């Protein structure tokens, strides 16, 4: 595969990932967490996210009143903890349902097209 095509595919994957980041973040915030702990837990679970993307996203979600935040200053370092608000919880549930539907529909499309998971044609055509 040429470099150009590799870049193109990576661009598409990054685009897919971008859309799922918010759900991933919301899923981790039923309990309060601070930004870097989130980076680590998401990365450990196979959803890598750059701090430079996550931190501004947290602020935006807070501004939209999906999250609430609080400074925790009793520890060694002051840290800002974020947690889902009531509206945030509802939004998260809604997003989960949307994601499940989308996932089902896409799966169906892919199965109908007759391509297996490795991306090759399994002969059904």
């Amino acid at each position: 595969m040429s470099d150009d095509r590799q870049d193109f595919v990576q661009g598409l994957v990054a685009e897919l990932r971008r859309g799922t980041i918010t759900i991933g973040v919301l899923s981790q915030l039923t309990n309060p967490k601070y930004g870097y702990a989130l980076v680590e837990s998401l990365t450990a679970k196979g959803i890598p996210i750059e701090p430079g993307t996550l931190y501004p996203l947290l602020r935006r979600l807070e501004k939209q009143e999906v999250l609430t935040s609080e400074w925790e200053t009793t520890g060694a370092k002051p840290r800002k903890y974020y947690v889902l608000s009531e509206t945030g919880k509802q939004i998260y549930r809604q997003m989960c349902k949307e994601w499940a539907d989308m996932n089902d529909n896409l799966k169906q499309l892919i199965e109908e097209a007759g391509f297996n998971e490795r991306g090759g044609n399994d002969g059904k055509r």
Partner: protein
Amino acid sequence: MKGVEMMGNDKKNAQELTERYLYAVTKRLPAAQRADIEKELRGLIEDMLADRTADAEATPKDVESVLLELGKPAELAAKYRGSKDYLIGPDYFALYIMVLKIVLAGVSGGLTIALLVGFIAGERANIFVSIGNYFSSLISALFQAFGWVTVIFAIMQKYNAKIDEENKTWNPKELPEVPEKKARINKSEPIAGIVFTVLALLLLNTVPGIIGVFWLGEAQAYIPVFDMTVFTRMLPLINVVFALSILKEVIRLVIEKYNLKLAAAVTVINAVSLMIVLYVFSSPAIWNAEFITQLQAIKGFEMPADFDLAYHWSRVPLYFSGIVSFSYILDTLTSIFKAARFHIVKTR
């Protein structure tokens, strides 16, 4: 001893690097959010460093790699702001480029002709000096034109960007109708109009004396049509007329079709222009009073017997006023007539 000092320096350098990064990010953020974001980012950088160094003292190299991971300060700040800042955004860009092309072409063409005429008409300095002058004035004029067009569009962008946010909903019903084919204004007409107006404007402002009679008989002579002192005094008013004319063509370019709005704008602009032109040119003061005398003084010039030149020269203000009034009225009536016609076609 030396080793301890170096470690102290390293720590200082590492801290300074962090501070510089934080400053570079936060100075690009709204003042109200600066302190909070700075505190949070500082914590983040410390956490990332602790991860890399396993709680040992961070070296400037460690800090560098952390900052590289966080990305360019301007980009990080842009993510925090969340909005896109444009000097001239995609909505205006196409129009901006078009206007820029017209204006720059008009300025180069006009200046070239003006200086060429100036050179031929007598200011025959050293040709190299003339060429040098030409390029220096051309470059400064082009930069000026570019700057002004950009400033105007930047203001439009700023002003309109705010309007856009106020009414974000978009209704397909509000799309402008596809104009009747004949009602469409061909872009080349207003563009040609602008180019010629800019040309005339430059000519009259750089070499005002060029409007005159060149006598190329055995004796060569040149007689200006206007009284130069009065003409220079009136030049600002004449420039207003040119500016109005350019405005009119720009409106034609933007509206793109004959309609009542355009007709109204054309009527107002033409009325104002005509009043100024009549004020300036209908009195004899601006016309060269010595024109006939100077003409008769040319060797080889003979007054035609059956044509009373002096009489007609005295009536030139009247003729000129008549012609100008006629063309303005014709232009106005055409606009109104076409608007009315296509308006009727549309409502039928």
